[in-house]
């Protein structure tokens, strides 16, 4: 399985993607391009009817920020294909973590800014002014156009988000997951803005600021959630599933497989989640009286790698007893 063995193959570093993941990656890229195209239309449409509504401004900025995750994903998907080099012996997998972090910080900063801005509008009792607009020779209230545009753009991201969510699981891609999660919640932003404008329409000047507060809170919340995820990944926290819901099951599978091998007395591994693929260090204590050869070790390593496409970079260390130093919690049996 050397890199570049086939022109058709797609690699993440040294890892050659299986058929299913290759197909998933292709679909994910297509969906991200669709997202970018949709966002470009959305941003232009909303800009045209922006007016003086704070809620519309917040929704517009959220749409602008929504460009970041798809772009981060597409850039990272390119960078992580590079095989490891002398300068980067672990490969380029971490690119996706960096992209994730950058997107998270942008969300948090903009969300906080809008939160303060909208709160100030509410405190100083700013009455948003929305007048008429010329449309086909008639003068109508601009608010109607705002509501129309927001309702028009509310639904599509939900479907795109759902489709991406499925792919994120197969690819074990947290940026894609975060992006899908945001898309799924996007309709609420659009509806909140529409309700805010409708509120202005019936003379509730505060409705706009309140809607803007709701939208900015959701942006800031996305930022915090993503920041937490991105930082814990870059900090080499224990590998978790793509949605961070539970520890990744692969860890248990590797240890079970090692322990089931004839000459192994006891084995435990630690995993670094590199974004898509895992880097694994397995500590193996040979059964008493058995003396494994270098070939035995190499076979065991190859069998482990064959367990799942995500395992590629795996090292086996032969030890007389499991080192607490490298495997915290080994003596207490660990907690799950």
């Amino acid at each position, binding site marked *: 399985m050397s890199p570049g063995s086939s022109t058709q193959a797609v690699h993440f570093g040294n890892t050659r993607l299986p058929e299913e993941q290759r197909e998933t990656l292709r679909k994910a890229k297509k969906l991200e391009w669709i997202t970018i195209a949709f966002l470009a239309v959305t941003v232009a449409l909303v800009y045209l009817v922006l007016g003086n509504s704070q809620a519309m401004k917040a929704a517009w900025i959220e749409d602008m920020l929504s460009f970041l995750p798809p772009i981060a994903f597409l850039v990272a998907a390119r960078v992580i294909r590079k095989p490891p080099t002398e300068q980067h012996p672990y490969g380029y997998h971490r690119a996706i973590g960096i992209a994730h972090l950058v997107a998270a910080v942008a969300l948090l900063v903009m969300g906080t800014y809008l939160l303060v801005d909208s709160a100030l509008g509410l405190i100083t009792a700013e009455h948003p002014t929305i007048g008429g607009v010329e449309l086909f020779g008639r003068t109508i209230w601009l608010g109607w156009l705002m509501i129309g545009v927001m309702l028009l753009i*509310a639904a599509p991201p939900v479907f795109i988000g759902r489709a991406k969510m499925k792919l994120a699981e197969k690819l074990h891609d947290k940026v894609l997951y975060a992006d899908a999660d945001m898309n799924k919640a996007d309709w609420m932003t659009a509806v909140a803005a529409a309700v805010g404008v409708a509120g202005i329409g019936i*003379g509730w000047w505060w409705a706009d600021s309140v809607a803007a507060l709701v939208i900015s809170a959701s942006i800031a919340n996305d930022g915090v959630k993503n920041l937490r995820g991105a930082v814990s990944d870059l900090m080499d926290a224990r590998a978790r599933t793509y949605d961070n819901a539970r520890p990744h099951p692969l860890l248990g599978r590797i240890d079970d497989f090692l322990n089931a091998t004839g000459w192994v007395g006891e084995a435990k591994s630690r995993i670094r989640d590199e974004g898509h693929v895992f880097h694994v260090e397995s500590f193996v204590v040979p059964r008493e009286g058995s003396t494994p050869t270098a070939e035995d070790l190499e076979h065991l390593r190859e069998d482990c790698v064959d367990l799942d496409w995500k395992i590629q970079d795996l090292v086996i260390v032969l030890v007389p007893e499991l080192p607490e130093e490298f495997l915290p919690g080994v003596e207490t049996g660990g907690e799950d």
Partner: protein
Amino acid sequence: MVMLAVAPLLAGCGASMPADPNGTLQEITGGTLQVGVTAAAGEEGDWVQLQPGAEPAGIEPDLVRGFAASREATVEWTGGTEHELVDDLEHGELDLVIGGFGADTPWTKHAGMTLPYMETKDERGKTVKHVMLTPLGENAFLLALDKYLQAQELQS
């Protein structure tokens, strides 16, 4: 789902949207339109001419009189500097301020503005989009004024 969330809000109030939080349009209809005027006359047009002892004259006072007539309102004129007039507008003492304002007016934090009702070129060849200033957030009044101004055939 989206429609469900907003539909009742729209259906209940569709007829009177937008509304004024402070009821300006209702107050001036058949009542008094309080207008702030500041002189603005130049090469590109006589927007507002002020003569002691006479009613304000020019393009904008004529438009305001027309609008007031359409709402059966009498106009009460108040003179002053832009600063004073915008301040009065913000505090609800005036309903409208005219004085040759362009759409790029720096007063937008303190006043709403109408759609441009006319475009001219200033002496530097820059396009000026002429607007009037209204109280912030009085959207029904603003829309009524916008509709009136857009319906006028104005030649620049």
